[in-house]
């Protein structure tokens, strides 16, 4: 082969290197998860009990269902603060319909449908009026939660049909919680959507540079709108499961969950500036937080202390990479 015949080619990805893989956020997170798991199973006698472990997934399944679409939104540089409010409205709608004697399958559809409608309103406000989504959803959070309060006052909806409880607190094969299976199915679906389709690629494009994405022919506004609708739909689904699980609707249902879902997403390595992150990372973050919460619960640590741990974990995970060197961009 003569030297003149050498042709250069630009590879579409860098050469495989183990160091690069090990430095990935997901691998780091997996390490943390394993550490938490080992630590807990050594210190807490009942931690490894399979039934306990299976039941511990109830604590995070619904929140994780919020985290999945939230990850897509944050990748697109958007955010939805109103998700917990949407859950409240969806649950109230279900409770109201239940009082009128609507059967269980229809109740579930009402929950999901109301969620989708709320998401559509968010999306329309964000896209039609070009308002930052954090502002819109702070407003609609108050609005949705307020609607739940107006309808319920200090009352509560109860007496939900058995079929709803079956999905909220039931098991497959008397062992695996149904909620957890639903979560895994949706995780697979979202991972496929984000990482294996052109839609997913476009979401990254929008997150990296919305203007450039628009000029490259990506219908940015339509994607944004659809993501908000998707977020609302998933919040509706989470509301159906949560209502089925706890069997009642109060105005403060799922209070503060928006921040927990966002914490899961950010801990999962999705950049708040948009354009990067994976569903795998989010799932690992969900498991890590779940195992920490479960472990602390077994050790009889009160719930509020867990918020310190979760908050500290969040601060630590974003601070550590900056402090441990790495490339500090001095541009600004």
């Amino acid at each position: 082969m003569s030297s003149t015949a050498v042709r250069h080619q630009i590879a579409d990805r860098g050469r495989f290197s183990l160091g690069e893989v090990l430095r990935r956020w997901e691998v780091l997170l997996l390490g943390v998860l394993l550490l938490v798991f080992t630590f807990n199973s050594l210190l807490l006698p009942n931690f490894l009990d399979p039934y306990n472990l299976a039941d511990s997934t109830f604590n995070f399944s619904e929140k994780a269902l919020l985290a999945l679409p939230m990850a897509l939104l944050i990748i697109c540089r958007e955010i939805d603060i109103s998700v917990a409010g949407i859950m409240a409205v969806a649950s109230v709608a279900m409770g109201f319909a239940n009082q009128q004697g609507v059967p269980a399958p229809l109740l579930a559809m009402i929950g999901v449908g109301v969620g989708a409608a709320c998401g559509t309103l968010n999306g329309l406000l964000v896209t039609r009026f070009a308002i930052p989504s954090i502002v819109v959803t702070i407003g609609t959070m108050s609005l949705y939660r307020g609607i739940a309060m107006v309808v319920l006052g200090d009352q509560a909806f109860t007496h939900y049909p058995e079929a709803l409880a079956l999905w909220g607190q039931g098991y497959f094969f008397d062992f695996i919680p149904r909620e957890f299976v639903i979560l895994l199915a949706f995780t697979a679906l979202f991972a496929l959507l984000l990482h294996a389709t052109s839609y997913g690629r476009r979401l990254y494009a929008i997150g990296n540079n919305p203007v450039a994405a628009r000029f490259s022919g990506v219908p940015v506004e339509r994607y944004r709108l659809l993501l908000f609708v998707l977020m609302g739909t998933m919040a509706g689904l989470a509301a159906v499961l949560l209502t089925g699980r706890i069997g009642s609707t109060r105005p403060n249902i799922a209070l503060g969950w928006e921040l927990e879902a966002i914490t899961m997403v950010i801990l999962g390595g999705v950049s708040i500036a948009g354009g990067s992150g994976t569903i795998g990372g989010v799932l690992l973050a969900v498991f890590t937080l779940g195992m920490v919460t479960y472990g602390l619960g077994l050790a009889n640590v009160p719930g509020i202390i867990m918020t310190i741990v979760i908050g500290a974990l969040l601060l630590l995970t974003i601070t550590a990479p900056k402090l441990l060197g790495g490339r500090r961009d001095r541009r600004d």
Partner: protein
Amino acid sequence: MKLEVFKQREVQLAILIVLLVMLIGARAPVFLSARSFDSLFTDSAILVMLVLAQMLVILTRGIDLSVASNLALCGMVVALIGRKFPALPISVLIPSAMGIGLLLGSINGALIGYLRLPPIVVTLGSMSVFRGMIFVLSGGAWISSREMTQQFIDFPLQRLFGLTHLVWLALAAIALAGWLARYTRFGRELYAIGNNPVAARYVGVPLSRRLLSVYAISGMTAGLCGYLWVARYAVAFTEIAYGFELTVIAACVIGGVSIAGGVGSVLGAVLGALFLGVINNALPIVQVSPFWQSAITGCVIVVAVVINARSEKRAGKQILPLTRVEKAT
């Protein structure tokens, strides 16, 4: 020129507030009494102070979600100090509340200013940590009015020249913020940072220090308000002011402070806070159930931002309309 005045957001908002007050007054004349206004201003004072501090943060393209937790933590700490040392005068307790708030805010500021971490994430984390710390310090117990000295409880509602201390503090905060934003280099630099951080850096604005300062100021204000809140309602427990950070941000948004940074005025922010104050105080007077409060606030925010939206159109608009091209067969 004459009509230009009405295009200003602050003027529109002021007119809206006056109309709202008149409307409520028409239904319930008691709302227009001096006593009613007195309680309106007293009730809004804490919100006004927090909104002003939050405005400085938002001007720099930041956000401080930890204010409510910071407030609650500082309130609990002064209540605990006051219980342990009942002899301490409030002239010591108030500065210590502000000092603790300042310290907590500086932690946020250091992470955001010097490590350049995203403000929303940092303050989301510290929000949880601060809230949890209240539980750790108090052991989950309530501190009730019986465990506070009379002087501690009385201060916020004591009167000076006919106005409560709360109102005076809010007025002082307005004056200070107005001076800071308009007449100091510090304030102008905050606007510069919000408009274009990179350009601000190039013209020599000490970005890290300024960011540290705004979060420290926000923390200090939260500390002061923490004492005021606890003393005013004569109780301290883990959940006080839960979710109040979003009310504060909402008031900023209504007042025309742009979440994208660099835009906002002290007058607007104060009016935004007063607007929410009027709604909250009017509901019981016009005999609307307090359960409506959240829904109405939400509507107001959405309407306010939609009206304001025309000034903040996103870039990258499609200029030419799409046309369907007929394929030649």
